């Protein structure tokens, strides 16, 4: 009970804790370029309007016509909590066994009383079992026992917010997310999951802090399409802090789409960590609008031969917003490949930061890495800072990086306008075309097309001044 009280207290004091602690500098020069220090004194999760509401029309929902879905509202699981289990555990078994109905079966109770509750989702493609429990790994009741493949929340008291943040290379927020996540999610994938799985992090209330922890494990040769959306249903200003881990075993395939459409006053931090075993392949599209402050930390370990990591990140920063990406890709074995392509369209008085580092260790023979960050400034007051780094400790590798920051091309705008397209629409098309460069030219499948459509919808917002509650635009 004392532990629970401690955690609740920490949740409430998280912003202050973050402000007061010494931010680490071990990773990617930490926060050197970050606007965090500047942003914190005016944290958006201070009271704004105090409104609350229901999730009536989330902007990013229904990405695909059919998909399994897990929804967390203000950090808490939304869904059927009236199941019959009496063991105090929560089990979510996603029915993705090829029957096409896209339904989940949620069982569990909600009366455990603990502030944290683990959610294990096991997806398989083997059919046959009707009890929905066949592939649940271990226990989920937070007692530290059982045989989970990955422990998403260790109850080892040595792994607390403060110790992890200060001892490891992480910045403090991932540890904070793991520590405070009310409903940590664990997904284990077996076989090929054809129906995209959606995880929606929805905010309905201003003045709240939501912490999310997601741990996804793809077993050998497993395949998953996953969509993670983070959105504020009522333009809610809030702190959203998440820690997502993807562990791909040998030959596993992951396609991941991350969509963030947070409120202008949102304070967003997230860390996404990929670990890829031999011949595993992860392809990620990240499409985001930033916030009052946003920092995305992406860390990838290509741990064994033949692992491939592809990421395309698009920042569509509306006026006054801020967005920051800290990327770190480690080639820890030979014949590994990473392609990292980022684009940022930056509106008036918006700020974009990019730090990217490729590391190739000694012996990683024939590793190949590309990193590219380009920014399009849509106003003279827009700012973009990019800093690519290569740390190569082996000779036989192929690495490249490139950075460009430029204003909108006047010739392109004139060309479009000369065809009858008004300036505002010409700018929208220009931004959209620029951001769509994150997609490989040959990709036109449903997954990619869905991501492209999100870029379209965000592109028009880069040059539009937002109306923030309590302010006039």
């Amino acid at each position, binding site marked *: 009970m004392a532990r629970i009280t401690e955690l609740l207290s920490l949740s409430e004091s998280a912003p202050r804790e973050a402000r007061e602690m010494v931010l680490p500098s071990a990773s990617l020069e930490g926060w050197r370029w970050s606007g965090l220090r500047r942003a914190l004194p005016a944290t958006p999760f201070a009271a704004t309007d105090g409104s609350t509401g229901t999730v009536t029309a989330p902007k990013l929902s229904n990405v695909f016509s059919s998909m399994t879905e897990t929804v967390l509202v203000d950090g808490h699981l939304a869904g059927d909590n009236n199941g019959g289990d009496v063991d105090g555990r929560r089990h979510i078994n996603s029915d993705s066994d090829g029957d096409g109905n896209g339904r989940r079966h949620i069982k569990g109770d909600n009366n455990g009383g603990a502030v944290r509750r683990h959610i294990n989702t096991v997806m398989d493609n083997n059919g046959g079992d009707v009890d929905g429990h066949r592939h649940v790994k271990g226990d989920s009741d937070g007692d530290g026992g059982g045989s989970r493949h990955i422990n998403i929340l260790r109850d080892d008291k040595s792994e607390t917010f403060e110790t992890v943040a200060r001892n490891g290379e992480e910045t403090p927020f991932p540890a904070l997310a793991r520590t405070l996540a009310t409903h940590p999610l664990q997904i284990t994938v077996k076989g090929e999951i054809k129906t995209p799985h959606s995880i929606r992090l929805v905010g309905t209330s201003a003045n709240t802090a939501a912490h999310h922890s997601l741990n996804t494990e793809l077993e050998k040769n497993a395949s998953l399409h996953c969509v993670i959306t983070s959105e504020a249903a009522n333009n809610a200003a809030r702190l959203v802090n998440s820690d997502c881990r993807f562990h791909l075993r040998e030959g596993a395939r992951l396609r991941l789409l991350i969509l963030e459409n947070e409120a202008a006053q949102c304070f967003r931090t997230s860390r996404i960590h990929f670990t890829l075993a031999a011949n595993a392949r992860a392809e990620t599209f990240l499409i985001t609008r930033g916030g009052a402050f946003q920092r995305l930390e992406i860390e990838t370990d290509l741990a064994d031969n033949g692992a491939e990591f592809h990421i395309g990140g698009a920042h569509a920063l509306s006026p006054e917003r801020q967005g920051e990406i800290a990327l770190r890709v480690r080639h820890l074995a030979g014949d590994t490949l990473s392609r990292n392509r980022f684009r940022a369209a930056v509106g008036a008085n918006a700020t974009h930061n990019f730090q990217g580092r490729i590391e190739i260790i000694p012996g990683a023979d024939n590793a190949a890495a590309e990193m590219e960050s380009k920014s399009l400034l849509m106003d003279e007051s827009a700012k973009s800072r990019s800093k690519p780094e290569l740390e190569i400790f082996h000779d036989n590798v192929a690495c490249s990086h490139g950075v460009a920051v430029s204003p909108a*091309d*006047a*010739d*392109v705008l*004139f*060309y*479009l*306008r*000369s*065809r*009858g*397209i*008004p*300036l505002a629409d*010409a700018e929208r*098309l*220009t931004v*959209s*075309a*620029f*951001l*769509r*460069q994150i997609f490989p030219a040959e990709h036109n499948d449903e997954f990619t097309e869905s991501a492209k459509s999100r870029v379209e919808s965000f592109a028009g917002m880069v040059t539009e001044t937002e109306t923030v509650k309590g302010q006039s635009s």
Partner: protein
Amino acid sequence: MTAPLLRLDDLRASVSDGHGERKQVLHGVNLTVAAGEMHVLMGPNGSGKSSLAALLAGREGCEADGGAAQMDGEDILALAPEERAARGLFLAFQYPVEIAGLSLTVFLREIYNRRREREGEAALDPMSFMRVLREEMAALSMDPALTRRAVNAGFSGGEKKRLEVLQMALLRPRLALMDETDSGLDVDALRIVSDAINRHRDGGRGFLLITHYSRLLAGLDPAPDYIHIFDGGRIVRSGGADLARRLEEHGYGALSEVA
């Protein structure tokens, strides 16, 4: 009395030299293009032909210093580029720009439907538009696979010029300014472009062609109504189709005296 399609009176203009100074490029252009007419501007490099086209289309940085430019009696210099386009002015670019990431099909559908809506017609759905696009591309012997690319991305010089003509076909402008559309074209492509221009000539449209060579003119039927020699930022001589032939024989120097 109906105003001419295009009327230029003592039009003077300057462009920035990139160092804060302005350079005068047009020194009093007088020209009238009536509906149904085709005019050809020929002149040496640097004579101001492309600057005139850019000024009329509304390119930023090219500014009128005096005189007037009217389309259907309306001062077009006061209009934004898109407003000029909406009134039926079209510029086929000498150097079409590449727009990485912007699907050619999406772009063409956008400008095509905007034109339809301006003219009170319903926008076409993607499938219907593709049928129209395929027909127009076939008429220009364009590879349908180009529609899967971004605008001008990886296009050859000839493909870019054909795309300009394709846009003209989709937009059906009332006044087409074609800035060296024949440059970079091989013999076959030149014939295809000439044929396309011929198809779009009618009593309601006007053309102002800018070219260095008379080879494009050979494929135009009927022949252009007027040939103008442009030098030193103004028209120095005007005549019929035979002026182009004499120009081929004697060069600009012999014919550039003010008539």
